[in-house]
């Protein structure tokens, strides 16, 4: 694509450690505007951590994140985040519309309450994920696929130029998976940038334009047809123990 455009997201030298164990090591990543990128890697490769660290939700040991060329600051509405469904308290006493309306809180500032306009936007987002008829349903009564659609709608409401989704296809039914894919296609068609932590290797070429192969380090990143090769996949999914041991030694020396 045109290389002189400012990328949507740039990650430089990002390193994250949990209690001295490196989870991400010196990750560089450039995501062009309008890209639809999968983040792929084995369990414990740091996929979710990459998303959270890019958003500043977990502290990074080192590294820099730029969004449209500027150092990233939360609260400017540039990145909408869809967390993992399983990490949420679904027995919370609230309904579908209310959860989606939370996506409008960022633009509301501290003291304004969501009003009619915000609820209308939330309804529109619910419509996009085909959940309109459930707007008054308590979230405790949703199926997994419905929960995932609600979380996607909450991100859509933010109208952010970049979306980061953590495992949106995990444990959802086939219609939900198709609905999510359709929404992601539309977003990228509108020039929005979509970054998805993904666990199903088979669907990567079908669903995504580009891929980041991650195993603590960034193994490779770029267009799917160039990067998504058997050699790269072997590098990413095999030999994990060796990589970690090597990294652990490096960290020890650095301390």
């Amino acid at each position, binding site marked *: 694509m045109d290389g002189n455009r400012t990328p949507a997201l740039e990650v430089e030298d990002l390193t994250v450690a949990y*209690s001295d164990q490196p989870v991400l090591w010196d990750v560089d990543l450039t995501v062009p505007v309008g890209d639809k990128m999968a983040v792929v890697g084995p369990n414990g490769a740091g996929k979710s951590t990459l998303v*959270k660290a890019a*958003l*500043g*939700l977990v502290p990074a040991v080192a590294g820099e994140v730029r969004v449209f060329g500027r150092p990233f*600051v*939360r*609260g*400017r509405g540039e*990145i*909408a*985040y869809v*967390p993992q469904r399983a*990490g*949420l*308290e679904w027995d*919370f*006493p*609230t*309904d579908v519309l*209310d*959860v989606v309306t*939370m996506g409008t*809180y*960022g633009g*509301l500032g*501290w*003291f304004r*309450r*969501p009003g009619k306009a915000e609820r209308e936007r939330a309804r529109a987002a619910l419509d996009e994920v085909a959940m309109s008829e459930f707007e008054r349903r*308590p979230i*405790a*009564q949703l*199926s*997994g*696929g419905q929960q995932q659609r609600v979380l996607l709608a*909450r991100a859509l409401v*933010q109208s952010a130029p970049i979306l980061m989704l953590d495992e949106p296809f995990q*444990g*959802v*039914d*086939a*219609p*939900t998976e198709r609905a999510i894919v359709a929404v992601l296609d539309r977003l990228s068609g509108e020039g929005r940038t979509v970054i998805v932590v993904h666990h199903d290797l088979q669907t990567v070429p079908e669903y995504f334009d580009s891929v980041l192969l991650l195993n603590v380090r960034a193994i490779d990143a770029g267009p799917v047809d160039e990067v998504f090769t058997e050699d790269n996949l072997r590098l990413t999914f095999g030999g994990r123990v060796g990589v970690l041991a090597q990294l652990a030694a490096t960290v020890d020396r650095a301390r």
Partner: protein
Amino acid sequence: MDLLGDYTLRMVALGSGILGAVAGALGSFAYLRRQSLVADALSHAALPGIAVAFLLTGSKTPLPIMLGAAVAGWLATLAVRLVVSRSRVPYDSALGMALAVFFGLGLVLLTVIQKRPDAAQAGLESFLFGQAASLLRDDVIVMGLLGAASLGVLAVLWKELKLLAFDGEFGASLGRPVRRLDGLFTLLLVIAVVIGLRTVGVVLMSAMVVAPAAAARQLTDRFAPMVVIAAAIGVVSGVGGAVLSSVVPHLPTGPTIVLVLSAIVLAALLGAPRRGLVWRWVRLGRLQPSAALDPVLMHLYALSRQHPDEPDHGHGLAVLRTMSPAGADVERALGDLEARGLAQPVGDGLWAPTAIGRREAERTLRRQTGGEP
């Protein structure tokens, strides 16, 4: 008995009511954040602060005592944060440790103070279980001001604190200072504890925070109503306990309030529509004789076991018809299962058992086979 005139009862009822409202409303947030133990630790940790405040001022005037309690509670949360961030001790264990250490220290200080010859210390142990009958107008005014302030903060930061309770990480992604909000909320809990010192005391205080929320959660599926109901339950228990303990001689106010509260919680746990135990029994009772007649649920469950990683993986009518005897009204059975919350459509005409449906199917299997499914 002459001393327990109308004035005393009015003060006690008012003070207990204020405590109930504040603890109930704040407690809803704490309960939903699974911070019940925090309330427990905060209130127990207040004891050494009370003792130190008394040692410094030599009197039991409310303000220094409240300040001491608040500072001690705050120090306890700082200690917990320090332990969690500097060691591998998990959060709940750190809370338990802080509770034990602070409360133990408080008891030691209390014992030391009581050995002193001067008479001013008399009654300091009432902060353990409260002594509402000694509430004066000034006490109640201070409690009212503190309560109004904390409920005011709750109202102003309503959507921020709700976000913090439901999905703090998402709140952070919107740019909200989640850590500072968390600190602020802890401060509000400390204030609730301070309000309850004279009424129910540090030991029973956690019940005032946790129990109304637990009961309210049984009664509603909506957020704002839950907070309001919890506050109302707090008020009813506070005032009810106060009145009861003034009518029946020798009944201590604090423990009576907590007993009234417990009765309400028990009633809600048993009798609440949908979530209550009785409601479940009734529904299960309806289910039990027909369990064998619900082969469709068992089929759905059997099919869903083929996809253990995808609990929502659905199956179509055609498959279920094939599994059922000819002429069985599969569609009606599915409608019936959905109405009872045991199965749900997952789109494209596909059906899957709900979590409850899976549990009931497993239970039926266990009944039939006498073993694990």
